């Protein structure tokens, strides 16, 4: 895949309305020590200056390894955690400034689907009650046809038998429970759904069913997704654009063809090269970049570029100057690397 081709890739959502705009989002978790009087001795920089836009009908994938801050990012976007700095705008309105009733109403518009279908549903509530809960909390969004009928409709939409409305979560399998969680997320007709590892707890054969469902729902209801996952293949499949996260920062952001076809950040390249491809004939063709060591402690990240301690391209400037997430010469996506260059050897495409 050539650079010219990458440039020719047009973002199909370039003209779509911006639904969610995140700018310089920061969340540091203080580390406190001391027995009686707790002193702040440091901070885990879980999310440190993340910016992106999400457009209507689009899926933005966020990939990264454990501890990179992607789950904290999801919580910030839901306002389940309050950010230390930065802004979140929903259709131009300042989401972070909202309080009380205004905030409660706004919550209808952004919903979340969780990773673990076993813990995300209250085991003591029937499926009908679980999916009806959004309507109980938002009486102004009362469905015309009555709550029970609407719940049955939602069950049908996510591919479950509406007659099972009185069953309890433990009577369903993991994949079916995930569908229940999706139905709950859909209940209030949200504009944005944040999917936090929605298929990583599911078996391969069931995973495909749930991903197809998410795609169908997106098409039907014009939803925008933020799809957080550690599985690069899954993100590749579902996303229109992809952001790669490392130690609280975005390393690279671009169309999925750019990220997967011609990754420019060394971290993205290493990440892609490590993904095993389900084709034994590719075994010896892949050029695998093996990263040395483990990610640094997020409470004490390296100066300059956070990836430099594991990077084979690192030079002096990487320690001195933090690279910005910008479009750099020779590449079309945005990469936070002083030495960003498309590396087609580790492209995920077959050559």
């Amino acid at each position, binding site marked *: 895949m050539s650079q010219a081709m990458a440039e020719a890739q047009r973002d199909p959502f370039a003209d779509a309305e911006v639904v969610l705009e995140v700018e310089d989002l920061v969340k540091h978790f203080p580390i406190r020590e001391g027995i009686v009087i707790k002193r702040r001795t440091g901070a885990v920089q879980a999310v440190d200056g993340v910016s992106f836009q999400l457009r209507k009908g689009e899926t933005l994938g966020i990939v990264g*390894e*454990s501890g990179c801050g992607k789950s904290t990012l999801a919580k910030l976007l839901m306002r389940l955690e309050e950010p230390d700095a930065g802004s979140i705008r929903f259709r131009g309105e300042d989401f972070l400034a909202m309080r009380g009733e205004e905030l409660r109403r706004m919550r209808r518009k952004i919903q979340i689907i969780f990773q673990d279908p076993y813990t995300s549903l209250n085991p003591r509530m029937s499926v009908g009650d679980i999916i009806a809960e959004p309507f109980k909390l938002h009486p102004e969004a009362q469905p015309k046809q009555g709550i029970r009928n609407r719940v049955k409709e939602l069950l049908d939409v996510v591919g479950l038998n509406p007659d099972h409305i009185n069953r309890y979560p433990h009577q369903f*399998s*993991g*994949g*079916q429970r995930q569908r229940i969680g999706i139905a709950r997320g859909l209940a209030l007709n949200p504009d944005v759904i944040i999917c936090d590892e929605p298929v990583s707890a599911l*078996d*391969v*054969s*069931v*995973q*495909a*069913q749930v*991903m*197809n469902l998410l*795609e169908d729902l997106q098409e039907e209801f014009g939803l925008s997704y933020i799809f957080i996952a*550690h599985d*690069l*293949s*899954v993100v*590749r*499949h*579902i996303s229109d654009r992809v952001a790669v996260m490392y130690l609280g920062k975005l390393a690279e952001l671009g169309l*999925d*063809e750019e990220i*997967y076809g011609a990754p420019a950040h060394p971290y993205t390249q*290493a*990440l*892609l090269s*490590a*993904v*095993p*491809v*389900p*084709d*034994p*004939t*590719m*075994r010896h063709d892949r050029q*695998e970049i*093996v*990263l040395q*060591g*483990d990610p640094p402690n997020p409470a004490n990240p390296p100066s300059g570029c956070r990836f430099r301690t594991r990077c084979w391209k690192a030079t002096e400037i990487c320690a001195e100057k933090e690279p910005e997430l910008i479009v750099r010469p020779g590449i079309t996506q945005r990469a936070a690397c002083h030495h960003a260059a498309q590396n087609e050897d580790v492209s*995920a*495409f*077959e050559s």
Partner: protein
Amino acid sequence: MTTTTHPAGTEQEGYDASAPLLEVDDLHVEFRTKAGVARAVNGLNFTLNAGETLAILGESGSGKSVTAQTIMGILDMPPGHIAGGEIRYRGKNLFDMPEEQRRRLRGVNISMIFQDALSALNPVLPVGFQIAEMFRVHRGFKRKQAREEAVKLMQKVGIPAAEKRVGDYPHQFSGGMRQRIMIAMAIALDPDVLIADEPTTALDVTVQAQVMRLLKELQTENNMGLILITHDLGVVADVADKIAVMYAGRVMEAADVFEIYAKPGHPYTKGLLESLPRIDAEGERLNAIPGLPPALTNIPPGCPFSPRCPYSTELCRTDRPELLPVAEGHVSACHYREEIYSGELKPREEAQA
């Protein structure tokens, strides 16, 4: 580390050097639960030779982990119950052995690594001590000598600054490093069979690649038979020699790894491969397998996959297909294995349309 011959007494205890390393023959394992009898493994067969990597691929509930636990002899009994069959190590049936001999096999000739290294290691003992203990208990090494061996082993599995870290506790290591420590313990006594139960599932991709590479190197070096239990078709394609695909406690298909990915002979394998999102191709809609695996307390008669199978016929719902050859070294438990293998058969809906 000095590679020794197999522990003393190998011949006396009735092992046959010419027999395959490990053979599982018509194994049946059940769990007796309140909800009924869960048939976790129903007539499982496979053979593992020295230096070979056999991947047992299956989804949750397919019986793959129960198989591993049964081979290791660490199955919870009750509720677990071995309802039939044999597992032979070098020609000798494990189930006929006196408990003492079985215990000597465990950890020495056959060892295992688990998915979750944090819970498999003792949190209150230094890792060096835990590795050294293997030598002290099984080889009768003195404390100092055992510790030296532990350091060597830690170096061998790629733990940086092993001499300094030998006194550290499990929680002081990262996930990948802990997995390396567990591997060190598993290979400490030069086992001939290593069972790895989802060894990299809990790890990040970059670490997963490192750990798989280490396992593969150690296997080649020690000529071990490796049983890799996993649900990850990508990892399997990368390291396995042979694959057995399990479903509802049975092997559905077994073959050489190149063969099975190129020409699957069972609709389930075919379905799995097609349902996978690929990193190297922009997929259209995924070809999901509809429905769910059967509850183990209520496995349908006939082919257990038939309720989800696009090719199933009346025959599939009534007659259970045997695991029969479809090509050289390639077996499949499907009535239509020839047609699936050659790609002639169309899914029923399409065929009718």
